C-alpha cells in the first residue's frame, strides 16, 4: 500500500527501488552491479548518513536505485535505521529489494519481516547463494516465495550472478498492487490487544499514510518516533492509555515486555519459515567452518595481538613505501604546473595568486592523495576480508580499560593515514558518547601530513636517531590520546561503557573491484572536502601574505608576518617565539605539511637551503618542542570541517580546536622548559 501510492504519478518507464539489507549482506556489491559507474553520492537530508543513488537501464525501463544504509532492523534508534525506515515509508520507492545473505538466513530475515510488516513491496535477493550451497544449505525458493508472498531470486553479487533475473523480478513486481498484507501472528496473548489498538488508531491524522497494524505494533514496542506522531493527535490521551493497558496485559500474561515478545515471535516465524524451506546437511566437522578455524588463530589470546600488529605494520609499509615515490610525482607535477602558470601569467600579483596561492596550496594537499588512497585500499582490503572486525575484537580488551570499546580502534588506526576519513569512520560507533570521545582523540593520531615536519627537523638535529625520535612522536600522540580519552570519559561523557556487540562477518576473499570502489569512494570524499574547504583558506592566507600591497610575499611586513609577530610571544616559553615559527604554524592549519613549505618561504630560501637555516635559528630542544606542537595543535582545516560535519555542533568543533591548542602548548612547554631544567638546549 505504501509502495504503489505514487507509482501512477511517474512516467511508466521509470521505477524507483530502495536497496535494503544487513551490513555484510553484499548490498554494496549488488548496488555496484546494478548501477555500474552511474552513481551519485549525496547526503540524506538533515543527517550525516551518506545517500547513494544510481541508475540501471533495462530495455525501456529506467530503474532508479537508492542504496539504503545497512541495518539489522528498522527501529528508529540510530540515524541509519531512521533514514532507511523513513525512506520506505515515504512512498517514494515503488519497491524494496531486500538483499538477504543466504548463508546466514535467520538473522537476515529479521529485517525482511520488518520490511514486510511495514507494507513495503518487497523483492528478495537471496545473495551469496553459492556460499549457502557450499555450506550444504538447500533452499526451496518456490516454497519461500509462496510463504512470504514475494518474489525470491538467488544471486551472487560479488560475481554479478543473478543480477539480470533480479531486475526482471523487480520490474515485474513494481507495477503490481501488493496482495494480502503480510502479518506475523504475535500470539493469543497479544493479538486481541493489537486489534483493539489498531481500531483505535483509525482516522488518526498524524499517521494516516502508515499501515495501522504496524503503527499499533510499534506503539506497543515503545517506538519513540511513532509515539511522537501519535502524541500530536488530539486523541493521543485515549490511544496512549489503551496502549499502556495492552502492554501491561501482555507483560502480565507472558512475563515479557511487548518488544521482547514481538522479537521472539518474529524469530519464531523465521524459524518456522526456515524449517519449511531449508534443508541442511551438516555434520559435526562442518560446524568448525574455515572461518572458525581462522578465528582460532587470529583471535587467539597469545597470537591475536602479534598478528594484529603485524598486519598494521604491513599496512603502513604498503602505504608509505609505495606512496612516497607517488607523492614525489604529484609534487613534481604541481611544481611543473606552477612554473608553467607563472611563465604564462604576465601580471605579477595574479601569477602569485595562482602559483603560490592556488597551485601551491592545493598542491600541498593533493601530495597526500597517493598515501591516502593506498591506506584506504589497505583498509578496504582488511574490511572486505573480514579481518577488521577481528582487529576490533582483539583490541577490545585493551580499549575497554580506557572506557572505549574495540570498534573505536578502527578510526584511530585510520587516523595514522589521514584524520579526515578517520573522523568519518567514527560513524560506525552507535553510542554517541563513544563516538564523540573517539572523534575528539582521533586528531592526536599522527597523520601522514605531519611526517614531513618531523623529517625536516629530525634530519637537521637528530640524524643519528631518526627512527627513534619520529617514533617517539607517534608514541606521544598515542599516549595522549589514551590519557585524553580517559579524561573525557571521566569528566565530559560520564556513563558506563556501552556494551560491545558486533557482528563478525565470515572471512571472504575480497574482490579487486569491491576494494577499488571502496577506496575510490573514500578517497574522493577526501578530495572533495579538501578541495572546497582548503581552496577558500588558501585564498585567505595568500591574501594575508600579500597585503599590504607591495610587501614581499609572506615577509615580515605582510599581514601574515604581522600576525605571526603578534602571536609569537605566546610561543616564547616554548622555545620558538619567532614570527617565522608562528607564521608556519598558522599556515600549518591548511595541512600540517605546509609548515615545511612555509619555512622555505619565510626564511626566504626555498626548501633546499632550509636545513642550514634551521640549523642557525633553532636548537635541538626548541625543534623537538616545535614538533610536539605540530603533532598536537589543531588538526588541519579539512579535519576541523569534518569534525563539524560529524558532530553537527560548532560547540564541540570549537572545543576540539581549543583543547588541542592548549594541550599542544602545554606539552611543548613541558618539553622545552623541562629540557632546559636538565641543561639541554
Amino acid at each position, binding site marked *: 500500500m505504501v509502495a504503489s501510492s505514487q507509482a501512477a504519478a511517474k512516467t511508466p518507464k521509470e521505477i524507483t527501488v530502495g536497496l535494503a539489507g544487513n551490513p555484510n549482506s553484499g548490498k554494496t556489491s549488488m548496488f555496484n552491479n546494478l548501477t555500474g559507474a552511474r552513481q551519485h553520492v549525496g547526503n540524506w537530508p538533515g543527517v550525516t548518513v551518506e545517500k547513494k543513488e544510481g541508475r540501471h537501464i533495462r530495455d525501456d525501463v529506467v530503474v532508479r536505485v537508492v542504496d539504503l544504509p545497512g541495518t*539489522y*532492523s528498522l*527501529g528508529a*534508534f540510530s540515524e541509519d535505521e531512521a533514514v532507511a525506515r523513513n525512506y520506505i515509508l515515504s512512498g517514494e520507492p515503488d519497491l524494496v529489494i531486500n538483499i538477504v545473505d543466504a*548463508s*546466514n*538466513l*535467520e*538473522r537476515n530475515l*529479521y529485517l525482511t519481516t520488518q520490511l514486510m510488516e511495514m507494507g513495503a513491496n518487497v523483492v528478495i535477493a537471496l545473495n551469496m547463494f553459492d556460499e549457502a550451497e557450499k*555450506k550444504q*544449505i538447500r533452499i526451496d525458493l518456490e516454497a519461500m516465495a509462496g510463504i512470504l508472498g514475494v518474489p525470491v531470486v538467488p544471486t551472487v553479487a560479488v560475481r554479478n550472478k543473478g543480477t539480470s533475473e533480479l531486475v526482471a523480478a523487480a520490474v515485474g513486481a513494481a507495477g503490481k498492487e501488493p496482495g494480502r498484507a503480510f502479518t506475523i501472528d504475535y500470539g493469543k496473548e497479544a493479538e486481541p490487544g493489537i486489534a483493539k489498538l489498531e481500531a483505535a488508531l483509525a482516522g488518526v491524522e498524524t499517521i494516516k499514510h502508515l499501515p495501522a497494524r504496524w503503527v499499533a505494533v510499534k506503539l506497543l514496542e*515503545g517506538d519513540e518516533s511513532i509515539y511522537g506522531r501519535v502524541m500530536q493527535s488530539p486523541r493521543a490521551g485515549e490511544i496512549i492509555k489503551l496502549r499502556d493497558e495492552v502492554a501491561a496485559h501482555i507483560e502480565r500474561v507472558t512475563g515479557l515486555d511487548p*518488544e*521482547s515478545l514481538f*522479537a*521472539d515471535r518474529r*524469530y*519464531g516465524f523465521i*524459524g518456522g519459515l526456515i524449517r519449511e524451506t531449508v534443508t*541442511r546437511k*551438516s555434520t*559435526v566437522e562442518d*560446524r568448525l567452518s574455515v*572461518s*572458525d578455524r581462522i*578465528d*582460532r588463530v587470529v*583471535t587467539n*589470546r597469545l597470537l591475536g595481538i602479534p598478528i594484529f600488529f603485524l598486519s598494521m605494520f604491513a599496512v603502513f609499509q604498503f602505504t608509505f613505501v609505495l606512496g612516497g615515490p607517488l607523492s614525489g610525482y604529484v609534487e613534481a607535477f604541481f611544481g611543473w604546473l606552477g612554473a608553467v602558470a607563472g611563465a604564462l601569467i604576465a601580471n605579477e600579483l595574479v601569477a602569485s595568486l595562482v602559483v603560490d596561492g592556488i597551485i601551491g596550496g592545493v598542491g600541498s594537499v593533493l601530495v597526500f592523495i597517493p598515501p591516502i588512497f593506498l591506506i584506504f585500499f589497505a583498509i578496504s582490503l582488511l574490511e572486505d576480508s573480514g579481518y577488521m*572486525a577481528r582487529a*576490533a*575484537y582483539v583490541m*577490545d*580488551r585493551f580499549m*575497554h580499560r580506557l572506557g572505549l*570499546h*574495540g570498534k573505536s580502534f578502527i578510526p584511530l588506526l585510520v587516523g595514522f593515514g589521514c584524520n579526515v576519513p578517520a573522523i568519518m569512520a567514527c560513524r560506525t560507533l*552507535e553510542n554517541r558518547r563513544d563516538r564523540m570521545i573517539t572523534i575528539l582523540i582521533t586528531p592526536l593520531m599522527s597523520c601522514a601530513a605531519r611526517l614531513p615536519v618531523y623529517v625536516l627537523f629530525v634530519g637537521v638535529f637528530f640524524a643519528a636517531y631518526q627512527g627513534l625520535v619520529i617514533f617517539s612522536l607517534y608514541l606521544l600522540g598515542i599516549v595522549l590520546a589514551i590519557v585524553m580519552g580517559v579524561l573525557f570519559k571521566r569528566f565530559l561523557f560520564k556513563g558506563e*561503557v556501552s*556494551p*560491545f*556487540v*558486533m*557482528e*563478525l*562477518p*565470515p572471512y571472504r576473499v575480497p574482490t579487486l573491484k569491491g576494494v577499488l570502489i571502496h577506496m575510490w569512494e573514500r578517497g574522493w570524499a577526501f578530495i572533495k572536502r579538501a578541495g572546497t574547504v582548503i581552496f577558500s583558506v588558501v585564498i585567505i592566507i595568500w591574501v594575508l601574505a600579500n597585503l599590504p600591497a607591495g610587501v614581499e610575499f609572506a615577509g615580515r611586513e605582510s599581514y601574515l608576518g604581522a600576525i605571526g609577530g603578534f602571536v609569537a610571544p605566546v610561543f616564547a616559553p616554548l622555545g620558538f617565539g619567532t614570527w617565522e615559527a608562528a607564521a608556519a604554524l598558522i599556515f600549518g592549519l591548511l595541512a600540517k605539511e605546509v609548515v615545511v613549505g612555509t619555512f622555505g618561504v619565510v626564511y626566504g630560501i626555498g626548501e633546499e637551503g632550509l636545513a642550514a637555516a634551521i640549523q642557525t635559528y633553532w636548537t635541538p630542544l626548541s625543534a623537538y618542542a616545535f614538533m610536539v606542537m605540530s603533532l598536537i595543535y589543531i588538526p588541519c582545516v579539512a579535519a576541523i570541517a569534518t569534525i563539524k560535519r560529524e558532530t553537527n555542533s560548532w560547540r564541540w568543533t570549537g572545543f576540539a580546536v581549543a583543547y588541542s591548542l592548549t594541550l599542544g602548548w602545554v606539552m611543548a612547554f613541558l618539553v622545552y622548559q623541562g629540557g632546559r631544567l636538565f641543561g639541554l638546549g
Partner: protein
Amino acid sequence: MLSSVLPLGFLAPGREAVVREVSGGKELRRRLGELGFVRGSVVRVVQSQSCGPLIISLGDGRVALGRGAAQKIMVEELDGRELDGRSPVK
C-alpha cells in the same frame, strides 16, 4: 539432562546452550535481539578469553560480545542432546 541456567559469559569455549532470557537495558536487549539473541536460540562459544570479549556462534553467523553483554544473556547448557525437537547442531 539439562544443566542449570547460567550467564553466557561463564560458558566454556566449544559448549552449546539455549538462550533462556536476555536481561539488561532496553537498548542492549534490542541490539542483541536484532542479531538473533532471543529466547530459544542456540548459541555456541567459539572463543572466550579470561576477561576479554567472546565470540559466539549464533545460527550461521558469528558475533563478538563484550563480557558485560555476555553476562546479561542467561543460557541453559546443552549436552549435545535434542531439545524441543530442534537439533542443537545447526
